[in-house]
């Protein structure tokens, strides 16, 4: 009786083992196929990278860039006189906006109204911002178009 039970158990274990081995075998086939596929993809990617690099080299070649620059840009070679050293730089201009200020544009306008104006170059670049403050009556239209621009500038911050 016991022998018969053992027999059935052994048969059951055998069937399970066979199923398990089959699964491992199947899985390994799947993995091997995946590996082959990835390898070929890898090779394909490497080939693509190589041809893209070659293409980039062609697009990036100095001869081509120079030709495009000459055709489309007003750039010119740098003359030796256009280089300068750091100790020749002028001092940093006084800060227009205080670092922690909650209303940066407001504080720029405040600073501008003070008679002690900063350096000329800063005043020039600040002019478009200062322009709308005294708008003449006939140019109200212009002032109106400029005001939203200032507002959007504030939103961007």
């Amino acid at each position, binding site marked *: 009786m016991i022998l018969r039970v053992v027999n059935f158990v052994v048969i059951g274990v055998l069937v399970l083992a066979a199923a398990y081995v089959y699964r491992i075998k199947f899985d390994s086939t799947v993995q091997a196929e995946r590996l082959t596929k990835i390898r070929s993809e890898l090779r394909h990617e*490497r080939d693509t990278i*190589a041809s893209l690099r070659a293409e980039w080299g*062609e697009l990036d*070649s100095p001869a081509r860039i120079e030709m495009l620059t000459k055709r489309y840009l007003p750039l010119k070679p740098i003359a*030796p006189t256009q280089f300068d050293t750091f100790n020749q730089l002028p001092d940093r201009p006084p800060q227009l906006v205080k670092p922690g200020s909650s209303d940066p544009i407001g504080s720029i306008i405040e600073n501008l109204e003070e008679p002690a104006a900063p350096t000329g170059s800063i005043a020039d670049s600040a002019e478009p911002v200062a322009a709308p403050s005294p708008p003449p009556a006939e140019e109200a239209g212009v002032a109106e178009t400029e005001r939203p621009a200032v507002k959007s500038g504030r939103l961007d911050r």
Partner: protein
Amino acid sequence: MRSLLYGGDIDRAAKARARVGLAIVVFAAVYFVIAVRLVTFAMVSDGRTAHRVVGGDAIATARPDILDRNGEVLATDVRVPSLYAEPRRLIDVDEAVELLTADLPDIDATELRDRLSSKRGFVWLKRDVTPEQQREIYHQGLPGIGFLPENKRDYPNGAEVSHLIGHVNIDNQGIAGMEKWLDGHGLAALHMAGLATDRLQNPVQLAVDLRVQHALRDELVAARAKFKALAAAGIVLDVRTGEVVAMVSEPDYDPNNPREALDPTRINRLTTGVYEMGSTFKAFTVAMALDSGRFTLKSSFDAHGPMHVGRFQIHDFEPENRMLTIPEIFTYSSNIGAARTALAIGVDAHKAFLKKLGQLDRLRTELPESAEPIIPKHWGDLNTITIAFGHGLSVAPLQALMGVAALVNGGLLIPPTFLKRTQEEARALAKRVIKPETSEMMRYLMRLNVEKGTARKADIPGYYIGGKTGTADKVINGHYSKASVLTDFMAVLPADQPRYLLLIMLDDPKVLPETHGFKTSGWNAVPVGGAVVARIAPLLGIQPRMDLPDADHLILASLKESR
């Protein structure tokens, strides 16, 4: 045994046990065989398929990429399909020829028919088919026609770096320039072993800077057109490491189309050609005199002309007819002065000095192309006199540049290289040839020559260029020709702390209205050199310095302090 299994007189139970036992043994043996076969299949078959993948991967072998010193690609491999046929498997040759010629207009129909009719197993039909053509042919579904991916060398910069990197043949083997050097250094052995098929080889980095190379080539192309010269060539050499940062020999060729390289006018004049360098050789003569310790910058020589040597007469281009000091000989470029200087040192010492500076031996670099200098067979007084001002000894321009680099860099002769090299590596290879003080004096003389002498047109403000000009009459049919000359200019940049040496060489420049009838170096090679320096100095990281004192105060003064 037999009686145990079949005998009638044996006990039934014992017989049954024996039969079962036999069955067990037989089954165990069968399963053992199966198990062994399974294991061997699992091990052997795996290796065999992997090998097959590698074998069919590529026919033309892979080569490492070549990069410039900043990592820009100079040469790389791209995978292109190539068309092949297996004639034995073809069913209808006429149909195949008809369909293939329709898709490949540039293929020769009769040759194609010959190839397809042959009884060989495998023939190439066309290398490098475009993807569109591949698709068309694929959709025709011809039996026995197929594609194999092959590596093809691609040079994205075209003619820019042609002579430097060389090119490959259709089987991707290097046949010129650095490509050939690569093959000579292990790559060929890898190919033989069939191992050089993957892309994972380390790229090779050269010393050349693509931007500098382009600027130099651009200026040389313009100069060659302007002066209607036969050829224009230039090198930028790092005097501290011997690295060749740029090298152009115009006319050059496109390595993507190697057939152009066969044209003999397109040779690399800088390493393959030898030339009489003209007055630039006076730098060697003067350096020799100063280094001997017998002469100083104050020494003077008789420069009354013409000088008679045997049946020859030596003339100066602009005769001064007086005693000239060494700086005057250098800046007026006096042939007579240089000749007397060399004679004062002596023939043997002159020869030994040039030998020490590597001017008499063949210069070998990584490039396979090199040329032997042409040295007079019997070196007498007359030879020393002419060689003192750069005639009668032909050297490769790169070789002369190496010598001049040693004159200005503090006296170290460093063999030039096309591969990246650090200063430490260069110092290990370097050989001291002249004293550091002599080198300082040479820099002073070269700067003086730009301030007051023949190279005034190269005085680009801010870069403190020093230089020596040279104009050599070309030898045509065995005689020196007055009509055609070779002009060169060597510029050291900057003259007080030399970093780079530039050579500009023009072969047979013509007279232009703006050169006032002159075709000496100062009117053509020197302004080109100045223009090149102004373009490349910012790329090489040399900062312009304005308001520097003249050579007398900056270089000569520091020389006196150090004494």
